[in-house]
């Protein structure tokens, strides 16, 4: 039975959400192979967010079934006050499945989403908000020029601007450095990089405010008004990371008449799963601190043997690459499959 009075009923104020909610989805099933640096990269992301975000925000981390060591690390970050809401999903419910949670339940008026491997630079939120202000029809705004048209030229929402004298379409050629950085982030092949260098991006300008943006946004990172996010759920979620499922977000946004836009300058950088000197230098510039990278192996690497070098060369042939990928994926599924 109830004894005494619940002190929580004494009229205390509950926590009020901030204007901006930032949501990150994390999935690190192990700390080796593809994911060997994933935790350090995620910590760099959180630190860069803290240093580069000029306004208060709530941070939600949705852990999509990571291994125990990662969950423990997340709890430490949560206990240190770095995370406002920590969602620990027992299973990987897919990126779209996690989006369904985030978009439906985050209470903040603006939701900034990012994959767990994105470095934030100062000015990212201001740049996105400036675009949202100049383009009230914006549904998603990325803080990096968008190079891929996920709608394959079929987007309808932007047509509404064609007869609006406040807006002017214009092509935009990013600088070589911006393109090279983007290509580095996604690990683009030389052929793909060449295509990006040759092809200008579709831009648009809001004439009264002279606000310029690139048409298109990226799933890797974007700002979405809560009112739009609420309208796009539920998204189909049957696989962990299926392009068709994540793209259903774009189709819904477009069908609802909202624009995909991005900034002309890169205010975020896709760190991926590797850490190099260039990244470390920039991280230090943003945060003023060096990341806590685990110490390197004290034993210097030996020159690989002749057999190993030959095997490496063989592994890079297209046929062998496919087979190795299949084996790797199979092992991954065996090691990290849910037994549900």
């Amino acid at each position, binding site marked *: 039975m109830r004894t005494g009075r619940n002190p929580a009923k004494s009229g205390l104020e509950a926590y009020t959400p901030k204007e901006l909610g930032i949501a990150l989805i994390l999935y690190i099933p192990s700390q080796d192979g593809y994911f060997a640096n994933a935790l350090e990269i995620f910590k760099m992301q959180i630190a860069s967010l803290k240093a580069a975000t000029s306004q208060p925000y709530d941070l939600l981390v949705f852990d999509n079934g990571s291994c125990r060591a990662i969950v423990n690390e997340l709890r430490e970050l949560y206990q240190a006050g770095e995370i406002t*809401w920590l969602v620990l999903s027992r299973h990987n419910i897919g990126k779209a499945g996690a989006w369904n949670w985030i978009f439906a339940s985050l209470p903040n008026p603006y939701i900034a989403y990012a994959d767990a491997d994105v470095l934030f630079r100062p000015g990212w939120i201001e740049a996105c908000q400036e675009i949202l202000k100049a383009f009230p029809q914006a549904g998603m705004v990325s803080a990096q020029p968008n190079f891929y048209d996920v709608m394959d030229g079929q987007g309808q929402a932007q047509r509404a601007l064609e007869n609006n004298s406040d807006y002017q379409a214009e092509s935009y050629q990013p600088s070589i450095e911006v393109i090279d950085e983007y290509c580095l982030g996604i690990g683009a092949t030389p052929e793909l990089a060449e295509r990006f260098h040759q092809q200008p991006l579709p831009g648009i300008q809001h004439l009264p405010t002279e606000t310029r943006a690139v048409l298109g946004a990226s799933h890797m990172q974007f700002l979405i008004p809560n009112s739009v996010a609420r309208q796009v759920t539920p998204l189909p979620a*049957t696989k962990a990371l299926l392009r068709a499922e994540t793209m259903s977000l774009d189709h819904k946004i477009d069908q609802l008449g909202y624009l995909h836009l991005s900034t002309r300058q890169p205010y975020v950088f896709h760190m991926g799963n*590797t850490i190099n000197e260039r990244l470390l230098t920039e991280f230090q510039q943003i945060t003023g601190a060096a990341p806590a990278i685990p110490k390197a192996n004290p034993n210097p690497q030996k020159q690989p043997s002749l057999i190993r070098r030959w095997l490496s060369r063989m592994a890079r042939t297209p046929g062998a690459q496919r087979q190795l990928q299949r084996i790797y994926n199979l092992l991954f599924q065996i090691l990290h499959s849910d037994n549900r």
Partner: protein
Amino acid sequence: MRLGQNPAKSIEHVPQPAPVTVAIVTYIPFLGGYYAESLEVLKVCLESLYQHTPQPYDLLIFDNASCSEVQDYLKNEREAGRIQYLILAGQNYGKGGAWNFIFQGAPGEYIAYADSDIQFFPGWLERSLEILQAYPQAGMVSARPLRTPAALYSSTLDWAKIAEDVQIEEGSFILWEIYRDHVLSLGISEEQARQWYDSRVDTRLTHQGVQALIGAAHFQFTLRKVVIQEFLPFQMDRPMGQVRALDELMNTAGWLRLATCEPLVRHMGNTLPDSVKVTQLAAATSRPRLWDQPVLRRTLLRIYDAIFRLYYAR
């Protein structure tokens, strides 16, 4: 940069949500005073849920900034595979705020909500779902018969009077012992409980062969997710005391508020039921105590609240 392909892309299928999400909100800021037994109560709550819920379900716990002992326990339960979604909030988000989060995010077609001081008995979910399915207009179904204010079930009564194939019976269908057990768990005196019991009657409905009593409560209920979404978001600027709005909104919107005829859940409050008590509390005395004097009691409560506020504001 990205090196290699993310193996997550090779995962063919991800687990699909169970039809029912059982959602529980916890708030135990420290293990003392009012909350001295709350962790043990929570353990009874979850153990009884595991034991008496054979249907497939996902368990979602929203922890509203509890102390580390409680979070450790919840984390262990998650690691043992018993909690599918554990949400840890850095600050108390209010019960309304937690409801906003879970009712919008919970993936199940049905959501069975319970406070963290509820004990579950066999058949609680089965009977709740049976009523929801037999009464398509049912908004919320509690798994315990209750006598609630008439103003909160007027729509249910109105519907029953005009609906076809609905049998309405009035009488005393809730046994005194069952009524007493619940009302005393709220900290109400036996005298007051008796007075309430004698002054009210129950209304029992039968539709499609399924019986239900009129009235539901917000400490435990099952509903369709699509129904609760009509009422979101709830106001959430206080930790407690604003969730009664759900009962009013549900009734105003014309949804039925129903309960099972049998007590299939029990409100434990902040102390363990005698049957599972692990610590002996000091025997209560029937003699009036000094601190029961209204003036002294109010003063002590103020001090108690002040201490809590200090703790809360850390």
